[in-house]
């Protein structure tokens, strides 16, 4: 078996802001300069890639009736849709900051695929301009993901050119990337270069297999074959207070965010006694698909050490696990409940 490079080498460019800073913001959108960035190749520098609005192009080919090459102007001259949706890295820690709520703007991917004559029952391969080596001793390859056609044709899926009202920053995929709301971030290929439509059942290109790409972002256990991760799992985090906070006895406005990939958040419960008792938190924004929801809980804090936990459940009835599945060998889908310890003086 060819070993994968360490995960550390794949997750470069991480922002280092604290969860508290991110989550205590008064807006539900994440500021652009605080949005996380994860690159797949250590030697790819988007600022040096010389991708410009005038030189960028996107090729759509494969099992289509009208292969096409689109320029950035072509995208600008097409109706641009807006989509507020959350982006989370599949490897985001239980209380990590690789999650952001963003306002995207771009061309509906289904619109482009229809123009090219692709069919929704296809599998569709997305390739970025970012290039490098994933496996030791393998040839350099462009970053690639394969997404089911049904999701590609869904109205929320975009070829995005704007993030929070401005063109994408270099590190977030300038000038264009795909966005698949509800799926983990690794599918939303940045610096988009090529879309290849595969017929139903058509074998994926050998180069894709050899690059090690399919083995990235999979659930690994000792007993089961790898299963690719896809939809974002239900999760909640406590933004305030953060671990080791010291407070005076008072009514403490505990707050945080919750989200899920499929459907919407149904409820968030809070425990202030290490999980023995749970009380429902108030959702201070209305739950919407692909969005996070802000929740609050007024806790009458008395002196002592306390362990706070939040636990979300989504409209599909899925709840956050209380702990990580011990069978899991990978470091993805980290959505278990996290204790936050604080002291009331």
């Amino acid at each position, binding site marked *: 078996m060819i070993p994968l490079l360490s995960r550390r080498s794949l997750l470069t460019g991480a922002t280092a802001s604290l969860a508290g800073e991110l989550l205590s913001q008064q807006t539900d959108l994440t500021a652009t300069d605080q949005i996380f960035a994860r690159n797949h190749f250590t030697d790819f520098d988007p600022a040096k890639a010389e991708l*410009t609005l005038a030189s960028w192009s996107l090729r759509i080919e494969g099992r289509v009736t009208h292969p096409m090459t689109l*320029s*950035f102007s072509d995208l600008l*001259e097409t109706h641009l849709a807006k989509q507020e949706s959350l982006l989370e890295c599949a490897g985001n820690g239980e209380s990590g900051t690789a999650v952001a709520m963003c306002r995207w703007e771009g061309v509906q991917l289904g619109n482009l695929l229809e123009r090219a004559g692709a069919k929704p029952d296809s599998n569709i391969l997305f390739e970025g301009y970012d290039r490098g080596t994933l496996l030791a001793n393998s040839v350099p390859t462009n970053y690639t993901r394969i997404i089911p056609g049904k999701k590609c044709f869904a109205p929320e899926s975009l070829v995005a050119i*704007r993030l929070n009202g401005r063109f994408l920053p270099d590190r977030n995929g300038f000038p264009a990337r795909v966005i698949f709301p509800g799926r983990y971030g690794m599918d939303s290929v940045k610096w988009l270069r090529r879309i290849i439509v595969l017929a139903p059942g058509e074998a994926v290109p050998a180069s894709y297999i050899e690059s090690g790409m399919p083995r990235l972002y999979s659930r690994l256990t000792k007993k089961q074959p790898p299963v690719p991760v896809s939809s974002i799992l239900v999760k909640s985090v406590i933004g305030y207070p953060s671990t080791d906070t010291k407070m005076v006895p008072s009514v403490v*406005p505990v707050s945080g965010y919750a989200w899920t990939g499929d459907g919407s958040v149904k409820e968030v419960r809070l425990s202030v006694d290490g999980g023995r008792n749970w009380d429902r938190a108030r959702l201070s924004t209305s739950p919407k698909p692909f969005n996070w929801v802000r929740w609050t809980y007024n806790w009458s804090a008395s002196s002592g050490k306390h362990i706070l936990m939040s636990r979300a459940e989504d409209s599909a009835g899925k709840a956050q696990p209380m702990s990580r599945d011990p069978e899991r060998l990978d470091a993805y889908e980290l959505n278990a409940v996290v204790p936050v310890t604080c002291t009331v*003086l």
Partner: protein
Amino acid sequence: MHRLVGMQRACALLLFAGLAWGAISCPPSDTSQTPAQQFAKYASQAQQAFQANDYAKAAASFRNALCFAPENGSLYYGLGLAEAAASHFDRARDALIHARRLSPGEPRVLLSLAQVNASAGNFDESIANLAQLDQLAPEHQQREQRQTAIELRAQLGQALLAQNRFDLALAQFLRIKQTGMSDPAILLTLATLENNLGAYADAERDANAAFAGTANREQRSTAAVIAGLAYKNEKKNDDAVRSLRASIDLAASEIACLALTEIFETSAEAAKAIEVSQSCSAVIPQSAAIAIALGRNLVNAGRHEQAATVLQNVTHNAPDQPEGWRWLAQAETLLGNYPKAIAALQQLARAAPGYPMVDSMLAQAVLKADPPNYEEAIQHLSRAAQATPSDSDVFFMLGRTYFSMGRYAESADNLREAIQLGSNSSLVYYQLGRALEKLGREAEAKQQFETVRLLKSIGQ
């Protein structure tokens, strides 16, 4: 847009091209001539009328000729040009759509249709026509047609800019750039759009290319300021300073001066900020914004008397500029001239009634005056509390003011509100403890002082 690019030139080409006309009966029949002769007569009349700038007669003659050749795309093309030249854009558009149906691969028809649609304000259709034109094989297009298309795109881009349709405007200028055209004026417009829309690296490249591609002093200054703003947006301050200084040296502009001042201001280089705004103010004395920036930086540098002089001048010349009054008030406060500070803040409230925290600032000023005017401070703070009901600082100030007036119950109520709104400063709890003490609620006061002790132990 009411000027068509190259329309008459294209028409002349048509008329000298020699047309093969068909024949159908339409005008009163002239039995003395064959249909071919009648067709030739009308076609000739159309040509002569067009050359004589009699476009109405030309259109009528084209219509008559069409009666003898109803499927002749070239005739419809000529009719479209005649109607367009007469500014009958709807009729021109109809004729050219017929021409396009009959001659779908003819670039001049598409180009004319794009021109007519642009002239009629149908910008989206014009853009669609140009896209169709781009799909035709390049060898089918003459150089002159390609140049006309570029000029049309530039006109469309400007018209779309005037309508604030920035994406579509940008698309036109990008397409022009993709033809290899490097006109500095086009590059400057492109760079401006790129910078405003967030493509900063592209803006830098195009502005620098425009700078290098022109000897015109004004254009070079504009190019440098656009590059400077783009660098500033990317937080490349050294490059931004270099470009903005180059722009100011070539031809000082308010935008370059303010951007350069702001860079020095945010990097806490007060002396440089003052130097830039002073020298800019000397060159552009009519700019209130630059003078205010100078005053603000003098205040921040502790040169309060100079600041007050500059800002008094600004507020005299531009009393509608709220920032002038705001910084004048700050300068006067720091000089201890509280009545002048209050007067400036009252002017600020008049110039901009919704100015953030103006009531809080007024309250602070009247509290600093000798003697303090508590009643007026309460009025200002009550308005501030209404404007920003979640601002705990306002309630803290209310609590302190009521305390100073000996109105301890109201003081305690407002201090509790400040705590409820999230204030966890030991100062608030201490003030509340004092108010409760005065009210004879010793046990409650003691609790507050204990909280003060705890908060101080954790640095709050």
